[in-house]
């Protein structure tokens, strides 16, 4: 078990390093000079040159990357070159919880709806629940978050006026849970509906396959009730593919978060990244990309470990 965890670490580190280094190279290619930006209107050539030196921009790309990485490991991602006296970490600290909350809510909503739907569909394939949920998930797969979000805003925000459509100044989760959750409801639901479609399809197929297994028929032959068979015997061995999808979807969720945060106007990771890229905010971009890629890699790492928790066979087999 521990071996499986340890064996994956070098690969994970490699992916994180590659992604952040790639970001550095891309930033290098992007036109615009951070030092000129930081200097602003007072940017005489001398001041700019001084700033270049100070920011280390005159060093070789790899040297700069190394310096940045060493600082970043200690939690210091540098300063914004656009905003005066704003550290990258402080921006991330305020943005990350918002993005995380929407993503976690979205996953929870997606699973809360997908699991019962998939179970119902698998128990009666071709029944009306199955047919409607298949058709529905097919439709949802064709709805990108920016289209879905527009529908959501139009129906729940404008026509019905049930939920706020702008989530910029939301109370904290712990100060006013109801107000906070109400504000994040629409953005999370928008993300959730896309995930939902994937989960229902995968889980349904795997459930049906497991239901055909000998051990399920033997459980029936032992007089064990349908519900118990489904939840205790079938769900767990059927959940591996869905779990993988949940891990991979985090990438999609990050992409979705960009759109959702713009649409519902709140300052999450996606929105500040877009701002930073447009504003050529060098260290801001590097810091945000680093956090996002580490997050993605970590989630998939956890998925791998959950795998072996769910399926004991994986624990002993060399992965």
């Amino acid at each position, binding site marked *: 078990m521990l071996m499986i965890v340890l064996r994956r670490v070098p690969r994970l580190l490699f*992916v994180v390093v590659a992604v952040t280094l790639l970001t550095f190279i*891309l930033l290098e290619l992007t036109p615009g000079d951070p030092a000129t930006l930081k200097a602003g209107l007072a940017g005489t050539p001398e001041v700019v040159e001084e700033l270049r030196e100070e920011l280390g921009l005159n060093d070789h790309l790899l040297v700069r990357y190394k310096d940045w990485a060493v600082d970043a490991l200690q939690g210091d991602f540098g300063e914004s070159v656009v905003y005066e006296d704003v550290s990258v970490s402080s921006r991330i600290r305020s943005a990350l919880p918002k993005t995380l909350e929407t993503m976690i809510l979205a996953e929870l909503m997606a699973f809360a709806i997908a699991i019962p739907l998939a179970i119902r569909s698998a128990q009666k394939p071709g029944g009306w629940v199955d047919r409607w949920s298949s058709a529905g998930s097919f439709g949802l797969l*064709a709805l990108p978050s920016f289209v879905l979000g*527009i529908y959501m805003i139009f129906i729940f925000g404008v026509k019905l006026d049930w939920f706020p459509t702008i989530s910029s100044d939301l109370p904290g989760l712990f100060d006013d849970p109801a107000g906070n959750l109400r504000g994040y409801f629409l953005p999370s639901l928008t993300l959730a509906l896309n995930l939902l479609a994937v989960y229902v399809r995968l889980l349904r197929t795997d459930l049906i396959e497991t239901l055909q297994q000998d051990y399920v*028929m033997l459980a029936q032959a032992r007089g064990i009730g349908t519900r118990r068979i489904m939840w205790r015997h079938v769900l767990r061995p059927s959940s591996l593919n869905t779990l993988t999808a949940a891990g991979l979807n985090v990438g999609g969720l990050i992409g979705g978060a960009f759109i959702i945060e713009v649409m519902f106007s709140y300052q999450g990771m996606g929105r500040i990244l877009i701002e930073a*890229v447009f504003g050529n905010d060098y260290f801001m971009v590097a810091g945000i990309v680093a956090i996002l890629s580490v997050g993605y890699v970590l989630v998939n790492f956890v998925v791998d470990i959950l795998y072996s928790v769910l*399926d004991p066979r994986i624990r002993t087999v060399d992965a």
Partner: protein
Amino acid sequence: MRKRLGLLFWVSAVYIGVLVFLALFRDLLPIRDPDALGIRTGDCRQFQDPGWNSYFGCDNLGRDLFSQVVHGVRPALFLGFTVTIVSGTVGTLLGVLAGFLRGVFDRVVTTIIDISLAFPALVLLIAVRASFGNGIVVFIVLFSVLGIPGYARIVRGASLSLSEREFVDAAAAMGATTWRIVRRELLPNVFLPVLSFAFIGFAVVILAEGGLAFIGLSLDQITWGKLINDGRVEIRDHPHLALIPSTVMFGTVLAFNLVGDGLRSLVAPREVATARRLIAEGSHQPGEEGAVVHVRNLRTVLHTPGGTVEPVDDVSFSVAPGESLGIVGESGSGKTMILRSIVGAFPLADVTRGGTVEVAGVDMLRSPDATIRRTLGTEIGTISQNPLTALNPVRRIGDQIIEPMLVHGTRSKQEARDRALELLEQVGIPAPEQRLREYPHQLSGGMRQRATIAIALANEPQLLLADEPTTALDVTVQDQILRLLDGLRADRGMALVLVTHDLAVVKGFTDSVAIVYAGQVVEYGPTAEIFANPQHRYTVALIRSMPNLDLPSHSELATIEGAPPSLIDPPTGCRFADRCPAVQQKCRDESPVRSGTDAHSYSCWFPMSAQPVEVS
């Protein structure tokens, strides 16, 4: 069999055809100039609602939304098409090579896929766009690069499993070069999955453009994404501006997905399993006193998508406590289905059972669900053919043994645990304490079969159903398991039904035997009597095909020529007629009636005891 693609597929295909037409001939169509300002020309008012003047309404400058949407078709399709071709081709090649060559090449490709999945594509898009502008070529290159990993991943998976298949091995063994194998064996086999994924990938490209437009990074021409993004601002007062292009985009993506899905259903047939319902026909006839299991005129019909199958046709037998019955037949003769029909556990299909199945006095076909479940759990123990699939791989052995006791409330948790230990000892599993906590994969095949026997015995059943309990095991283990079952039957006075294709097992371990052929019991009687005095020609053939140690070692082993008939459409007359050495015209015309005595019955027009017949 040709599969139907369905109405939705063709509607989608036609819709895509219309889009292609619009993309090609947009400049020849009688529509307004999408950039003409209606408020200036007077053609269209600001924010005019959809109507006859302008089908989709007009925007804040009076531009006609319909012609804007039509003009957006070309960039969407062009982008989708070129990107799909480029990334599909490159991704497929990489995937095939990675899956086939493996080794270093595979590791490099999978690492690149990992990295690209972890990298926020948006950063790349923004950076490249900022450096190279917003021409369509920039977008094509970017989206193609981003699309490659998706194709590579799918194709790699498919090639990995393909390259383990026999035909690839065979080609390699015949000295085909790598390139030839890739081209002739692998590529044709991944073509259809890739094609179906390409339609979905096409849709993804259209969406990606929309997403980019959404954050203000689109092409230098009218696109759907741009229209949606511009309309979004007016969602409160003039919702048509955002809703119409969104819906067009949604419809397009849906159409591409539907076509892709239709193609996929050609490769991997959609499973058409229907709900599993158990239907009972006819009426119950209580059995004689003293029998644990009593089956009379049992008829089982499976309603599968491929047709109706009748694997059990008019089967009767009963077994008293402490006795054992062997059910013998070739594979596919329906002998397993007889056991399944007793316990009512089938794969997904509607099942109709008629006749009588009575276990411990309970009508197993028509009683209330709870009664049937209780009887199943406390009076019947089932052992299946393959111990490797009979245990749930993700649950501990202990939990699986304890479960029937807890579910049916026969013991408390502590008692159930103690009993589980006792059971494991009884079935001969060493170190039972430790085994309780282990998972099935940690046990050998023989040990697993012992564990399933322990589960079956948990609630001290009166009836033990064993479906070829030893076929999947080593020869040395087979005898141990059979002796164990036989000992348990004798000690506890259980009735044992033993399904097997092995007459030697029947001879050694059963009191009576039912010979099954094509879903029917063709001969039934005490084991000793059947072996000494077989009546049905099939029984005779079976006994002759037994290896006999008394014969000289070089004597030829008799085999039965031909194969049993299909159960989907069984022939009229005697089902064994085609393979019978003593067949007469009567056999083909009329089904034989059951004859002989109650103790020894057989269904044959010309049994062994009758006048010898001319063998033509």
